[in-house]
């Protein structure tokens, strides 16, 4: 579904990705693992067009990827960044409507009712400001907002970072629900257990390159790979 072919990218003068290749399959969950600074978040930002692709190719469903975040979002890719990026000037309702009203139609998969079914807590806070929410609620809002784009691919950067264990469990169950409904996802995650229990496929990134590719079961069984690349 999504193909990265020897992609080079980075911030300003600093190159972070050095010919990274990976592939995310339709209807499956791909986890990108690796140590801090390996280039996981950079990979996601490059996919989203937030950082320019300096070399290599990115293709989505066989089509060349758009150039700007706007074009890429329009192709059907939704992004939940590490910082969640809830708009502080908007209420919870407005944060949701901003995607619902622009991507939703009557027969869309994802409607306001359906995301509020998925995250009932958001329903109680609709008129609150975006930043009056707890970290967990902000994460739910960021995921709900992304789902309302009715994406074909959902990209999540560190969805559990800074969250209490009970919220991590909740987010895990919700994402598992989405996976069973057939949503394609790419996940960057520090929490090894969380990532491998959700993912079908795993790619390990180190120094801006893919160094290990396989299934979630394989990486759980491969202690040498865990030790070498993840420091688990």
């Amino acid at each position: 579904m999504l193909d990265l072919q020897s992609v080079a990218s980075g911030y300003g003068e600093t190159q972070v990705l050095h010919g990274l290749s990976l592939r995310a399959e339709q209807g499956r969950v791909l986890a990108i693992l690796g140590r801090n600074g390996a280039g996981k978040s950079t990979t996601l930002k490059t996919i989203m067009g937030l950082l320019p692709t300096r070399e290599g190719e990115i293709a989505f469903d066989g089509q060349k990827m758009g150039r700007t975040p706007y074009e890429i979002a329009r192709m059907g890719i939704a992004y939940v960044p590490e910082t969640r990026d809830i708009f502080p000037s908007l209420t919870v309702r407005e944060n949701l409507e901003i995607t619902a009203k622009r991507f939703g139609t009557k027969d869309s998969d994802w409607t306001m009712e359906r995301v509020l079914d998925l995250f009932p807590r958001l329903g109680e806070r609709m008129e609150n400001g975006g930043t009056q929410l707890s970290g967990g609620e902000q994460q739910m809002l960021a995921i709900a907002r992304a789902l309302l784009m009715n994406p074909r691919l959902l990209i999540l950067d560190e969805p559990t970072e800074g969250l209490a264990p009970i919220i991590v469990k909740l987010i895990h169950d919700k994402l598992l629900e989405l996976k069973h409904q057939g949503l394609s996802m790419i996940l960057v995650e520090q929490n090894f257990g969380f990532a491998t229990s959700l993912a079908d496929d795993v790619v390990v990134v180190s120094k801006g390159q893919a160094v290990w590719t396989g299934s979630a079961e394989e990486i759980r069984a491969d202690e040498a790979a865990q030790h070498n690349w993840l420091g688990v």
Partner: protein
Amino acid sequence: MSLDPGFWALQTLNALQLSMLLFLLSIGLTVIFGLMHFVNLAHGSLYALGAYVAAAAATVGGYWTGFFLAPVAVAGLGILLYSGLIRRMRKSGPMAQVLVTFGLIFALLDLTRIVWGDIALAIELPALLDGRVSVFGIGYPVYRLFIIALGLAIFTALAMVLKRTQIGAMIRAGVDNDAMAACLGINVERLFFIVFCVGCALAGLAGAVAAPLLSVTPDMGLQILIPTLIVIVIGGLGSLQGAIAGSLIFGFVQTFGAVLAPQLASVLIYALLAAVLVIRPMGLFPAKG
């Protein structure tokens, strides 16, 4: 004199009128900056141009022709500026933007000089807005009241659009975080273009409204630039509340300073600016909390 209620009423109305004029100018500039981090120093020149268009149109078709034509003409120039210069400079950083738009001030200044000459132009008021009415026991020019009403009406309209409409929510989202807004499928560049045009139209309107009050001269754009910048720095970049609060503070400090402490008047507003920068460096109501 300072015990006479008429004096206070008069100065309050004067301050409000100055504030509203500054508000029309600063709102465009501050939202353009908030949304796109683009510094358009030539905003004052657009105001001067609005005044000239209004003056020229008024000699042909009367005041109202100029009043309605100036915003349209200046927005038209804004479209030219956007497609010719600004779109290319979006990624070139603040220093280049400041230099180019600063240069633009002088280019536009000389252009108005070539077209309209150095002599100040004046506009005649329509009968409806001419003369004085009695408010709070003083006779006050109708035209100045008209400016106050117009400023308040435009503030209310913009507040409604920003607060209640989808495009308003998109603008607030873009000011909060333009990269994330783009990732959610908002065409931030087009949004910027719309806001830029509206900002230009409001600058043109401010020029048309100011024209009968001040004499229309080529350097009026330069003269208004510093007050406008002070307004948006005091108010905080990117927000409607900031623009109105900054305008009111500037208008009142300037007006009352000039009558109560004339020796201090020219320093007062800069002292206030410095104080705001020390105590609240982001301004009073910055858009990004």
